[in-house]
């Protein structure tokens, strides 16, 4: 089946030529006319559908080879087909964020002389998980294989899986404790890891020797290689059918059409102009074991975004004013930022027509050098980039949504994605063996509300539109913990006319182990890292951790006494404290502590999404249903939404419409009485700003933004009528 190369490839020159043509003509690869599409549109569309079918089918097959519940259950995988220069032509569903990061990986090899050494030959397998070459974080390991036909490189097939264990300083894939690249885990830096369609034995041995749970990574490698070979053979058969010249032309026209479709879609769905928004992220690690004193232990990041939609339909996102990179695992490379943009666009604007790298080409990211979005130091850690990426692209979703609302496409407006905190673990498994893994039920957070309905409950994450939490039984097979609860968290969606989707909370009993390390990441401390829209509130996304060490749960079970199955709704005394005896722990920030053992209990909460619209307009009948089903509490219905609920004969909540109307009129009057003119508030607040009377972390945030960004400095100074530089000592 292998097709030996006959001539020098010179793909590098072709890549440079393609980029030059794009610069000169403004069209992908200089394709100013879609000749093949115009000749036979039906054939054109059919071929793209076939390519997409190859991708979807290859991914489904590969998921059944994988041993990882992340890939098998939750679908943490994507595959795609590329041009020889590395531009995506067609992709599967799944973690579509990686379609463009893989493109960067291929281009990186082409630019760096891989044709000469180590050479690109039929049957070769190349792998990468280096974010500065092209991925988001160390667990996102990608494999690509070249596609040859008639001795010529005609494309690439690529696949990515999110690995549940990456061999870093803390167990799991999103290595929370990594503060530099050197503690993130096993790096594969654009390496040739296989030849003649076989993974090299020495590469597999390296994986086996450097990972806590190599079965996940190694079988995922096999799954990816199988999917790549499957796509490669399908493409070769297709070329036999349509001819090589046709393939080389049509594959490029697909991308150019994708680019044009994105521009047209922007002009169809949005309104040109400047859109602005922001979010924040807090990180608290002071006094936690393992953190090296390399930077501030506690910090606050601002993530401002200015989005311009130009009159030709181009979307430009500018991150100026955000914070510098740091000695933590949340930095992001331009590849990761690209990935965030790509996956957001595919969900929100490319829901029909061609989805490929053309969409990405119709956008531009402005990533200030030296910030977390574009570090000027390639030694930084990016293991938990998602912690900042998800809030950032949640802002992007809200900015896009405002444009949809302005244009009238209210059904597409969406308050956006949120972080979904990851829990990872390692130590001794319930089988007595060493183990390590990321628990991927986090791939099912609450979504932001829509402009016409509530958000999705426990069914959405930004990085994978095919969101899934996986079955309890599967997770229990893979970790020494048993579920004693998996519950909806009431009031966890941001309040609004339409509320954000609710999150869920898992409560586990540590079982059959005397050494279980639990680590969490991607949750903000002390600040919400999401927002609401058009009057909706952000979701409450700065949860603390709650655990009980040496609990009396076995004794309670033996006596048939009630157990705790969730943390409850009292923020001052959790159900764990009410029901269980033992050493109660409430911890802020990443959960990095001494190992747990059998009998300990741990609760972990995911996040809900932001709300849309004024709370006083929420539907009382829907709210009664929400209370009945545990999405809202009766107290919240009345206190936040002004909805008075009675009970029917069977005790179910029923909206009292007259009482609600009266209560809401009172609340509205109270709101007006309580509010003051913004000008009055600003005059008072300005004195505080002038005195820089803020918490040290807030002051540091301003000083850093001012140091890096002339625009932030100018805007801040103008808004408060102060000299920002001298106020924050950033001169």
């Amino acid at each position, binding site marked *: 089946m292998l097709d030996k190369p006959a001539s020098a490839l010179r793909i590098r020159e072709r890549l440079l030529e393609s980029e030059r043509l794009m610069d000169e003509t403004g069209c992908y690869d200089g394709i100013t006319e879609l000749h093949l599409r115009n000749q036979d549109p039906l054939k054109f569309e059919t071929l793209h559908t076939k390519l997409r079918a190859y991708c979807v089918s290859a991914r489904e097959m590969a998921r059944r080879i994988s041993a990882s519940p992340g890939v098998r259950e939750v679908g943490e995988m994507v595959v795609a087909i590329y041009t020889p220069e590395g531009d995506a032509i067609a992709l599967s569903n799944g973690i579509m964020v990686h379609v463009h990061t893989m493109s960067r990986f291929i281009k990186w090899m082409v630019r760096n002389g891989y044709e000469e050494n180590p050479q690109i030959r039929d049957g070769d397998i190349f792998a990468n998980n280096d974010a500065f070459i092209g991925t988001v974080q160390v667990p996102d390991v990608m494999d690509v294989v070249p596609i040859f036909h008639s001795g010529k490189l005609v494309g690439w097939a690529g696949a990515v899986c999110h690995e549940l264990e990456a061999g870093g300083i803390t167990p799991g894939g999103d290595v929370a404790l990594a503060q530099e690249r050197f503690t993130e885990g096993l790096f594969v830096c654009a390496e040739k890891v296989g030849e003649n369609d076989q993974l090299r034995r020495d590469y597999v041995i390296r994986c086996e020797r450097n990972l806590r749970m190599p079965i996940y990574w190694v079988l995922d490698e096999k799954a990816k290689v199988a999917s790549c070979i499957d796509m490669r053979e399908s493409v070769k058969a297709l070329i036999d059918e349509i001819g090589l010249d046709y393939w080389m032309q049509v594959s490029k026209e697909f991308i150019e059409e994708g680019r044009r479709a994105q521009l047209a879609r922007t002009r169809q769905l949005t309104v040109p102009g400047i859109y602005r928004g*922001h979010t924040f992220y807090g990180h608290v690690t002071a006094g936690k074991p393992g953190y090296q004193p390399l930077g501030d232990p506690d910090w606050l990041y601002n993530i401002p975004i200015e989005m311009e939609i130009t009159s030709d339909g181009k979307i430009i996102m500018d991150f100026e004013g955000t914070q510098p990179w740091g000695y933590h695992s949340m930095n992001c490379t331009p590849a990761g930022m690209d990935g965030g943009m790509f996956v957001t666009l595919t969900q929100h604007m490319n829901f029909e027509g061609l989805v490929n790298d053309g969409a990405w080409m119709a956008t531009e990211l402005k990533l200030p050098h030296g910030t977390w979005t574009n570090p000027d130091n390639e030694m930084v850690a990016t293991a938990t980039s998602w912690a900042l990426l998800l809030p950032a692209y949640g802002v992007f979703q809200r900015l896009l949504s405002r444009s949809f609302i302005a244009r009238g496409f209210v059904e597409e407006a969406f308050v956006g994605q949120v972080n979904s905190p990851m829990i990872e673990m390692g130590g001794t498994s319930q089988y007595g063996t060493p183990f390590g893994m990321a628990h991927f039920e986090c791939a099912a957070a609450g979504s932001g509300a829509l402009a016409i309905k509530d958000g999705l409950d426990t069914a959405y994450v930004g990085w994978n539109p095919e969101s899934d939490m996986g079955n309890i039984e599967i997770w229990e097979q893979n970790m020494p913990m048993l579920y004693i609860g998996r519950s909806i968290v009431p009031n966890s969606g941001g309040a609004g006319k339409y509320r954000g989707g609710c999150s869920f909370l898992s409560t586990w009993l540590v079982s059959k182990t005397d050494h279980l390390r639990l680590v969490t990441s991607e949750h903000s401390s002390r*600040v919400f890292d999401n927002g609401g829209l058009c*009057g909706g509130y952000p979701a409450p996304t*700065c949860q603390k951790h709650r655990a009980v060490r040496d609990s009396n749960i076995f004794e309670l079970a033996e006596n048939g006494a009630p157990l705790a199955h969730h943390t409850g709704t009292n923020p001052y005394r959790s159900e764990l404290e009410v029901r269980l005896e033992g050493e109660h722990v409430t911890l802020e920030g990443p959960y990095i502590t001494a190992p747990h053992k059998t009998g300990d209990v741990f609760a972990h909460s995911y996040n809900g999404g932001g709300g849309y619209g004024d709370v006083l307009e929420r539907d009382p009948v829907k709210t009664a249903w929400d209370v009945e089903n545990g999405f809202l509490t009766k107290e919240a219905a009345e206190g936040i939404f002004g909805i008075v609920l009675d009970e029917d004969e069977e005790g179910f909540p029923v909206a009292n419409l007259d009482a609600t109307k009266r209560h809401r009129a009172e609340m*509205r009057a109270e*709101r007006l009485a309580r509010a003051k003119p913004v000008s009055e508030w600003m005059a008072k607040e300005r004195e*505080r700003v002038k005195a820089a009377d803020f918490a040290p972390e807030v002051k540091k945030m301003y000083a850093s933004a001012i140091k890096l960004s002339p625009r932030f400095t100018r805007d801040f100074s103008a808004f408060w009528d102060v000299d920002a530089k001298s106020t924050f000592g950033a001169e």
Partner: protein
Amino acid sequence: MTSYSKEVIADLVAGTLPWPQTRRIMSAYKDDDRFFKYVAVLQERVGWKDPILLPVGDHLFICQSGDERVTKCECGHSFGDYRKNWKLKAAIIVRDSEETLREIYPNSDLPDPDWMEIREFICPECGTLHEVEAAAPGYPIVHDFEPDLEGFYRDWLGKPLEPLNKGG
């Protein structure tokens, strides 16, 4: 070309269109005549005559008010020139204490008020909550949206706006 009646658009905007029908609209090709139908639906909803030029929120519109283009609340209250940030003319409630944050977040862990506050921007006339910001103390108020209104009407809708006498 896909097209829907004004009644369907009205129900869609109100959130009352049955879900199966909404779902079909979401999955179908978009209706290119949406904008003016949408504006007509909103115009019927508001109790005033100034022509709506662009909705910018759930109850917030840029409209032609005599010789001026202003941002207006659905109740009729004007926040002034649409090119200026309407929030600066709004009323505000700031939640920067455990007590006031707890009113909105009854069960969850709260932000540290020294790190983050919740700002509610309210119409001073009718009390509608138009926008909420979650921001660090001292963070400038965001100007959410500066539309290229004239470019939009001229280049995208093909219906240029009448030139303004007062440069608005």
